[in-house]
């Protein structure tokens, strides 16, 4: 039961892709992903990220996006795929709810 924390954009890092590859082979499906900093761009509704977003959907695990980092970058609901949005307080709550937090960057 791990919260996977990604902080780099898929445009510059394989972090999200690598994390998803591992999760495909994770039999303990109670994990979740939280996109922070530049990783929030992964939620952009763009064709070259479609395969990542499909992969997340097919894994059927919760994927959260940090609200403050979205707002900083001018992203809003109209521009992003349907991910759950959490704020800093939600981030803290998630890190309590999950046994451990694993950072990928």
């Amino acid at each position, binding site marked *: 039961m791990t919260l996977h924390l990604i902080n780099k*954009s898929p*445009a*510059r890092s394989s972090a999200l892709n690598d994390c998803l590859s591992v999760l495909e082979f994770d039999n303990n499906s109670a994990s979740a992903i939280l996109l922070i*900093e*530049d990783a929030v*761009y992964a939620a*952009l*509704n*763009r*064709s*070259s990220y479609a395969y990542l977003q499909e992969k997340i959907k097919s894994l059927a695990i919760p994927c959260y996006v940090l609200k*403050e*980092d979205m*707002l*900083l*970058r*001018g*992203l*809003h609901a109209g*521009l992003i795929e349907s991910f759950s949005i959490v704020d*800093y307080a939600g981030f803290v709550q998630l890190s309590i709810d999950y046994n451990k937090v694993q950072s990928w960057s």
Partner: protein
Amino acid sequence: MTPKNILVIVRQSPYSSILSAATLDIVLTAAAFEQTLTLIFMGEGVLHLLSSQDSKASGLKNISKALPSLELYEVDQVFVEKDALKERNLKTENLVMRPDTLSLSQIAETIEKADQVFNF
């Protein structure tokens, strides 16, 4: 000193490093020295132009606020890569300013014509 054709290409997203702030400094300084300046946002760089960026909660500097003022600095050659907008599902209405769009072949041409290119 004859003014040079200076081209600045922004290819990175706005908050991944301090590069954005440094780029803005280069642009404003070159403009102050009356150089002919062209600024192109391409690839991930187009994300600089997204409107409603809100830096309050983060304490970081919101560079996008400065972009509509570039005209006052006589930086009026500001372009954005057409395909990069399209691929990200963005329209010029989503941007803080309305730059003209360029195709990749037009960008190649602009690079050829420039005396000096800064590519970040």
